[in-house]
């Protein structure tokens, strides 16, 4: 007997290529879920990894940084928040 497959329909979960399976430190939702404002996860609600190596939903960290009280610091480690060495004002324009 010879077995061949004409077609194969597979199923997979996608995940962010992150070292640890964790939740967003701001909204407490899993990274693969959305921030509290978005409907769709993934490209619509992407992650941002800070230079301190903490990552958040982009929408979460932006609205955090917009607050005066955040002093533009990472909510997890209190380091100044930057992304690939760029200050956040540049990121926003990207």
């Amino acid at each position: 007997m010879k077995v061949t497959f004409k077609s194969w329909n597979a199923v997979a979960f996608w995940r962010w290529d992150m070292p640890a399976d964790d939740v967003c430190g701001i909204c407490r939702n899993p990274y693969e879920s959305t921030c509290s404002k978005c409907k769709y996860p993934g490209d619509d609600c992407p992650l941002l990894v800070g230079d301190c190596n903490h990552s958040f939903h982009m929408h979460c960290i932006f609205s955090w940084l917009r607050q005066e009280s955040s002093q533009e610091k990472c909510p997890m480690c209190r380091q100044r928040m930057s992304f690939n060495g760029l200050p956040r004002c540049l990121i926003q324009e990207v």
Partner: protein
Amino acid sequence: MTTSAMDHSHLIFSALFPVPSLSHTTPTPSATADLGFAQPGEPFEGSFVNNPAGQHRTARRNIAWSTATGFLALPKTTSDSDGGFRVHRPLKTQEVEEALRYLLVGEGKSGDAEGVKQEGLLEWYRDEVRLHFAGAVRPVVTELWEKPVSLQHAWDVLEETQRILQQDQDQCLRPFVEHIAPILTQSSFSSSMTFNANDDSQNGPEALYEQMQRDIHALFAYSIPERRFSQTLGYVLYDAGCNLFRLYIRQGKTSETGASEDTRAIRVRMTNLLQNLARVGLGGDTAQKACAHAMDKLMASFIESHFLKVDWYSKQSIVSQLQTWVENGFAPLVHLAMECLQCDLTDQETSELQQWQDMALGRLGRARVDNLFDFVINWAKSLGGILDIKEYLKLPDAKQYLVTHFSKQISRRLLHPGATTTYILNVYISVIRVFHELEPKGVLLERVARPIRRYLRERSDTARIIISSLLTDINDAQDTKFGPGSELSREIAREMQKPMTNLNQDADEDLNWNDMNWQPLPSDASLDYKKSKMDDVIWFLLTLWDRDDFITEMKTIFGEHLLKCQDPEYEKEIRLLELIKIRLGDDKLQACEVMLRDILDSKRINAAIRTNLTTVPPSTPNNPPPHTPPNFGPKTPQLRQTRSSTKHRTPAPTSVPGAAKPEITLSAQILSSNFWPTLRDDIFKIPTPISELQASYARQFEAIRGMRKLDWIPALGDTSVVLELEDRTVEVNATTFQASIIYAFQAQPGEEWAGSKGKGKSKSKAQGITRNVEQLEEMLQMDEGLVRQGLAFWVGKSVLRESHQDTFAVIENLSTLSSSNADDAAAAQEMAEAQAQAAASTVKSQTDLLKEKKGLYSQFIVGMLTNQGNMPIMKIGMMLKIAVPGGFPYGGEELKGLLGWMIEEGRLADLGGGVYGVRKA
């Protein structure tokens, strides 16, 4: 004037009644028998003063009495003169006339003689009538009425009774009219100057006549048993009515013909009887009640026979016909009957007609309501019956009657364990439609539907059936799909077919953007929340549960459905989500929306990646290009095929095995893990070519979607497998685990297989590759249970056979298959289909959870049956509940499934009659 008249009469009297006649024996009232000679007393008024014969008054009165009473006497026995009727009244001589006059208006009239009250002639006559009736008539009447009157004699008995009484009444009243009244009239006329009018009217001849007639009527009435009379008369009227309205329901009645010419005769006969009964005083209360009762019964019979037939053809209400009948047929008859009975009808006529109309409608309506459940089931053919009920609901109390009785029908005929959830849902939908017709406001629906809704909520499969049905295409679903035992409701699917435009209108109404207080529908809001929703069946279904509960359920079912969905456009799925958003608001539907988006996105990603993938495996130049268009396209028709497809497929590739490596089309569904329900997560090794393809796919995915990776779920998905065997090629749609198992039956490097070249054909024919369960577990890293399920699937397809216990061989050549193998295959196919059903469920169900713990349960069962011997299933269930740590939270069906599985496993034996035992090795 008066004096002279009295004198004159006295003169005549004395001339005719000479003294010797005193000794003549004639009927003498006893009251006067021992009167002595009259003493000189106070003078009487009027002529008495001048009466020359005063002192002989008593004697003279006695003579006159004898003469008068002798003349007026009535027979006292039935044997007297022809049954007591024909009286040979003696000739009325002058003497009689004188005596009468003397006793009635003369000095012998009555009153006190010497202080003793003397009986008057009128009083005597009344007694005489009474005695006569008791002696001569009552026995005859009694004979007619002493026994129950048989129906066929009812008319005769009444008519005969009436005849007898009429005759008697005439006989008794004639002497009064002919002999007594004229004297009184004359007297009262002549005395009208001196006596006051009051006195006159009380004692005048008319009043006396009426008094006498009343007396006689009372005698008559008391002589007939009231109940029996009333029943007999009632029957007669009912019978007349039946004839008049052509109702032939009396038992044994044969004359259906000639009814029309009878009609007039019957009307006349009835009219006469009633009028005559009234004439003898039998038309009073009793008769009227009997008549009313008969008419009521007549109406009931008429409605039953003529109107109970629902208009199934033109689907009209028959109420207007009924009203016409009441107005033109029934009411005139009742009126006629009552008129004959001399009831006063003048002022009630119109209001009575309305009463009869209401009565008729009430009867019809109640009869209809008693069948309402059947009308619901037969909606919309039953529209006529429903419209009748709608008319009936205008009556007071009708709504209460309907709610009470229909609720009883619902609980008896619908809400019981024997009814499938699909059936209950279908009936509920009909109830919604019927009640929308009956009462658009929805108050009644809310009341009658409450228990149905409660019951549906309690059933665990309700939501699944609703959602699956909403997602079923009624057009391409075969009829069997909606069969009685089906998990799909055609009615629900049909609702989904209704054009979206209506829904959008609803939506605009619901989501009134100007309404600042607008909120999503409260869960299970009172159903009159929105009257306009009354005919929105889907809304009723979606609001069965608390909104959050429903959406949780929806998420599971929707997810499972999407993974299996074969429609490349996902039209129904998109539509259902829209529909739910419109009706329930889009709050908390995120999971469903993400799942749908995942599936739609996957389709696009597949289109992008597959184009690249096809170049990965080495392919021969003359291989046909893949079916899928190279660019992003909305349609991927060849990709998702039915697992158990009945469609005819393109034949399998005929290329020689090994000559060219055929392409494999890999497509993937890429899911967002947090939004999908818990999915099957069995782990096993999929065929290497597939895992290579998957790795390649994943790489390309990562290239397209930066920062993302894929985790494959081997247990989910399906495949189209082509098996090239020695004598045949088989193409099968299988799940991934089934495909992986059959793939493992291919020859491994170094292994011989029957189809390979260079081997003696005689030997190869008999032998395909064999694998045992253990080997497969090892090779595939697969759970034993899943291995066995997969093996059963292939045995069912006649691809494998169990050559030894737990060892399976490829059937390279069907001619080698013995008939017992064929039987095995049939049995296995059956089993495999059942399993395929279970396996098809991609989401973990209660059954899956049971499977996870089945090791524990089965261990316990084997131990128990070993120690305690064979046991019926009931007891096994009980013992599990009591003795297993954590209990056994499943019902009989699940337990049966578990035991069935253990039998498959060869650990138990079904000993019949629900008794199980340990299988002896």
